[in-house]
């Protein structure tokens, strides 16, 4: 089987499929060039089109946390199960339209994440920014990417925020800019996460204008 990226080796363990090994890349963003190697493990999903789970198992993320460069794993966009969050869920569909090409996945999401992590190790900043955690990030994402009549994006964002349960939106609809920010900071929403507030307002407006209502 041809590896999706040189250096990665295929294995089956516990009925699951993996690509594991060193991910070595040379990449450039604007005038910043990074040459680095991260040890990773990619767990393939049995569902076609579903994103694989990726973990960094070379200790670099662990080292950042141990040195106090980030307070929590989630601040490095790492889930409690050590898998990495490369992008908001709706971005997966936008980029890949339900068809997962592993090589493209590595080039467009995995390498850029590790490029940014390399820069974070040096500067403690995310070079091209990051979305806020949880639903706030989805709202920011919606605000960044919405365009007229893009009901598919609206659907994806609502789904990412758990709209199917109905509960999230009910809660959020009551919030406005002067309310306390849902992130728990104690600050006003419009001061603390203004882009998320803009995204929420856009979501609500587009929701009531779309076929969803």
């Amino acid at each position, binding site marked *: 089987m041809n590896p999706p990226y040189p*250096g990665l080796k295929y294995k089956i363990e516990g009925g699951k499929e993996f690509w594991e090994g*060193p991910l070595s*890349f*040379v990449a*450039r963003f*604007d*005038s910043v060039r990074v040459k680095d190697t991260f040890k990773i493990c990619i767990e393939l999903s049995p569902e076609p089109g579903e994103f694989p789970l990726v973990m960094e198992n070379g200790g670099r993320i662990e080292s950042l946390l141990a040195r106090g460069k980030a307070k929590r794993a989630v601040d490095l966009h790492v889930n409690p199960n050590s898998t*990495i969050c490369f992008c908001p869920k709706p971005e997966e569909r936008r980029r890949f339209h339900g068809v997962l090409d592993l090589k493209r996945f590595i080039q467009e999401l995995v390498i850029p994440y590790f490029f940014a992590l390399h820069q974070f190790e040096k500067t403690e900043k995310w070079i091209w920014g990051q979305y806020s*955690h949880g639903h706030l*990030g989805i709202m920011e994402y919606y605000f960044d990417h919405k365009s007229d009549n893009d009901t598919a994006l609206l659907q994806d964002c609502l789904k990412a925020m758990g709209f199917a349960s109905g509960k999230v939106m009910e809660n959020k609809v009551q919030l406005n800019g002067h309310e306390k920010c849902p992130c728990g900071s104690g600050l006003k929403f419009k001061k603390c996460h203004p882009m998320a507030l803009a995204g929420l307002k856009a979501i609500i407006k587009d929701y009531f204008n779309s076929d969803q209502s």
Partner: protein
Amino acid sequence: MTTKEFFEKLLSSQVLLEGQLKILSDNRAEVEGFLRNKFGQEPIIRYAGSKAKGTMIAESYDLDIVCYFPSSEEESLKKIHDKVQQALALKYLIEPKASAVRIKRVDNQVETDYHIDLVPGRFIDGSTGDAFLHVAYGGEKERMQTNIDTHISYIQKSGCQDAIKLMKLWKMRNNVPIKTFVMELVVVAVLKDSKTKADFSKSLTEVLSCLSGDIETMRLADPANSNNIVSEVMTAAEKKETAVKATESLNIIADEGHSLFGWQKVFDEGVGSGIWTEPIVIINPSKPHCNI
């Protein structure tokens, strides 16, 4: 891939993207607008450096601008330099250099490598050619005469722009402390009469050989003023280290039999254990997000 294709790919990877070019033109417009507010329409403000010469590389670019007052300006060169510096300090994070004022860029509160070097000066006569600059190299000389049109023309007519770009890339990737203008003059001195400039394997080997054997002793004059010995702006230590790095690169190339592999190593293009692929340019990356 052949060695020729490798160099062509390197060169094409260094073409500035539209976004980068826009940053340069926006920054120039912003700085020019600010200076016009302060000093009116009199100073000539224009591109200098690699943008004007056609030797800019995407991996390490900055903006060079000159701000030359007319010859009728009565203030001393030092006063001109200081007033421009003080004006810029009101708006920007600046760092004084020997003849330039460096405006540093800060993105997301992180200081980036990109910067704008602005050189204040005064034209010598009524033309817009020769100019005096105030210089602070620490010696007795505080004034230098030069002409950026001559510099630009010298580089453009040399036919060596691509070789210069490749050597700038080599400098960057190997942390070589040679001044960029000195590097340009070395490349032109070595290759100007060469009929095989575009054979980069051959021509870069010649330039590296010059850096390895001669940089510590060669005297490179400013094409606009033979009294300015440009190579004197480098310290002995910088010249020595440049020679060492050039020698190391030559040894790598020789050890690898002048093959593609050797050049890939010299340009740090990720070779060695067969686990690297072609360098990628990240465009439109996704911001990470944790849905927790």
